[in-house]
């Protein structure tokens, strides 16, 4: 039976069909629907929103060591957070298959950079699979678990916005699932990476990479399609779709797995007169083929930034279509803080107080836009706290305290803001941190966070108390303000007072997300009814 599915739904299905039993992740566009789908449709898989990607991967490693096929999902920048365990699990290998899905965002539709995850696979010397549509996404997920166990390695599935968020047809298989026996997990030589153990593992990693190269030559999803012999295109994953429509008469080699199948590509190159490499973002294929001595045209005509498109590829090949220009001079329609969002007041106050605002990642980043213009930095998850510490330190060198604050959302604070706050306490930096507590991960589609009161599948659980966490980290000056039109003055005075004191302080600007509130209320009422 065939069904239309998002790439993300297909990956969830693939994990289910491949007998995965643990799935972890942290929300991030365009990866979030994988864990959401597993929570909703495959409840027998133990799935969760972890507090960040590093923890998510460490959990998946733990369950893999216990013999269970484990899936871990994140967006591309999430892998920076999880890079520490990644680089070493590449050495230890796995027991149950370990598959890490990383969703890239060429064109930066909702990201702060457009890093190309294929670099990480190469860096860690582990295989990466690159699906071109939802059908591939399901099949590759299952294959990735097999490869992981066969070669004793974690495997990356590198997806991207146009795969994750495109619905295409997927063949659904009926499968019988069976929980594997629990492994004892006592193999210190393999899993305790002290230098004496890690050195021989590094040798194994290098040998494994050579074996994976050989395997890639046999990987059935690399596709050599011969049409005309004038032009041959080497391309990869999703970009294949653009190439097929932009240059329908060209012969095409589609790369679906890394390390590259060099021999196969050389064979393909021999059969065409002129060879091109069409690659989105970084020239990974290109650099390797150049090192192999192949002659071709690549990044000379293909951009290294942004999404490719049929139009870009046709232009690069000098094909002229009817010129189409958008209507010029139209007012843009940027997204905005939602009508009724309580945190609008925060940005109005910070604007009026002329604060320098060290910002963070979430819907509140929209506070940078008019009419607020009240966010001045956004680097990465949790960066606001460290940035504010550094900014305050600089002002101390000038014998003053800067009129600055850090602004962070609750989910981002739990993700990686807490360590920064501990640092401020430890080093006595007089920062002011405003936590916009809306009790949900709003930007990525309202996934529960540790203080929501529900888990990833909206099953009730213990709500973490933000104020207690802040106090537990050693902050003495913390106040919670129910934020809204009636408390504008109270909030304003709090900012004035806290930015003037010579110790770290926190203001919790408390207001549930206006979009998620009705759903949360309904869930809470349901639970009350059930308890009666």
């Amino acid at each position, binding site marked *: 039976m065939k069904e*239309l599915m998002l790439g993300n739904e297909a990956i969830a299905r693939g994990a289910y069909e491949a007998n995965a039993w643990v799935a972890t992740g942290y929300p991030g*566009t365009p990866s979030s629907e994988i864990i959401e789908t597993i929570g909703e449709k495959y409840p027998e898989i133990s799935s969760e929103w972890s507090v960040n990607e590093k923890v998510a991967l460490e959990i998946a490693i733990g369950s893999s060591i216990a013999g269970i096929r484990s899936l871990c999902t994140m967006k591309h920048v999430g892998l920076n957070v999880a890079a520490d365990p990644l680089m070493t699990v590449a050495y230890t290998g796995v027991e149950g298959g370990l598959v890490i899905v990383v969703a890239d965002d060429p064109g930066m539709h*909702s990201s702060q950079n457009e890093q190309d995850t294929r670099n990480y696979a190469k860096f860690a010397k582990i295989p990466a699979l690159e699906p071109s549509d939802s059908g591939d996404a399901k099949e590759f997920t299952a294959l990735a678990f097999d490869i992981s166990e066969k070669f004793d390695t974690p495997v990356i599935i590198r997806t991207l916005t146009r795969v994750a968020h*495109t619905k*295409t*047809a997927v063949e659904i298989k009926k499968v019988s699932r069976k929980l594997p026996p629990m492994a004892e997990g006592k193999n210190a030589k393999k899993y305790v990476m002290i230098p004496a153990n890690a050195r021989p593992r590094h040798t194994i990693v290098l040998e494994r990479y050579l074996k994976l190269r050989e395997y890639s030559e046999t990987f059935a999803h690399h596709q050599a399609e011969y049409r005309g012999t004038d032009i041959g295109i080497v391309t990869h994953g999703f970009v294949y779709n653009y190439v097929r429509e932009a240059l329908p008469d060209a012969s095409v080699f589609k790369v679906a797995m890394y390390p590259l199948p060099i021999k196969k590509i050389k064979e393909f190159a021999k059969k065409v007169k002129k060879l091109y490499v069409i690659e989105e973002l970084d020239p990974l294929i290109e650099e390797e083929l150049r090192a192999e001595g192949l002659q071709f045209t690549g990044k000379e005509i293909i951009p290294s930034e942004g999404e490719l498109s049929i139009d870009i590829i046709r232009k690069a090949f000098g094909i002229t*279509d009817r010129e189409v220009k958008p209507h010029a001079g139209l007012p843009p*329609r940027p997204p905005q803080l939602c009508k009724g969002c309580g945190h609008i007041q925060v940005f109005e106050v910070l604007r009026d107080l002329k604060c320098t605002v060290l910002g963070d990642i979430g819907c509140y980043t929209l506070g940078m836009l*008019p*009419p607020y213009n009240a966010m001045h930095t956004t680097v990465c998850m949790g960066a606001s706290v460290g940035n504010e510490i550094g900014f305050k330190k600089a002002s101390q060198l000038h014998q003053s305290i800067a009129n600055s604050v850090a602004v962070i959302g609750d989910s981002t604070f739990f993700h990686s803001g807490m360590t920064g706050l501990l640092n401020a306490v430890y080093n006595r930096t007089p920062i002011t941190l405003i936590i916009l507590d809306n009790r949900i991960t709003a930007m990525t589609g309202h996934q529960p966070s540790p203080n929501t009161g529900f888990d990833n599948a909206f099953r009730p659980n213990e709500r973490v108390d933000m104020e207690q966490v802040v106090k537990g980290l050693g902050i003495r000056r913390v106040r919670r303000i129910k934020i809204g039109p009636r408390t504008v003055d109270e909030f304003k005075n709090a900012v004035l007072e806290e930015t003037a004191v010579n110790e770290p302080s926190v203001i919790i600007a408390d207001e549930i997300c206006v979009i998620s509130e009705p759903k949360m209320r309904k869930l809470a009422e349901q639970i009350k009814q059930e308890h009666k």
Partner: protein
Amino acid sequence: MESKSVVLCGVGGQGIILASEIISEALFRHGYDVKKNEIHGMSQRGGAVVSFIRFGDKVFSPVVKLGEADIVISFEQLEMLRNVHFLKKDGHAVTTDIKIDPVPVILGSAEYPDDIPGKVKNFTKNLCVLDVEQAVRAVGNLKAINVLVIGYLSHLLPEVKEKIWKDAITEMVKPEFHEMNLKAFELGKQLACEFNPQ
């Protein structure tokens, strides 16, 4: 058959995503290869939303190429003008007459363009502007506008049986809105018949 393309656009919160879900499901059930793509993330925050549907015997790219769409349907006038260049020469442009001021217009730093239908007609002679007030009087609720445009679209894609459209609608909208939505579907179809006499 060469692939066909439909672009749906408008403002976050207008029901564009649900409409494109229903349309792609109906086309899929008809037997087409279908790819449907949109950029998520901003839909609830009043940003511009564009959804692409491509269908045919075999579809590769889910992203619509400039100047190739057979049909562009907009839920808002300015967004019609913003996306009209996706349309192939004399393709079908359909827009509601709704105007929603974007933030720069609200703040006075930009003006909402005047005479949008006139400007759209520089791109295509096939422009239909749907009178939303009249439609709401007939079907009872602004929320059914997304199914109204599905009704309109169904007239332009006569190969897909009416039952397929209606089944997709009733399976994908909440039961309490079935009657209203089926009314909206019929009205959309009727408006399309009147505008495109064959």
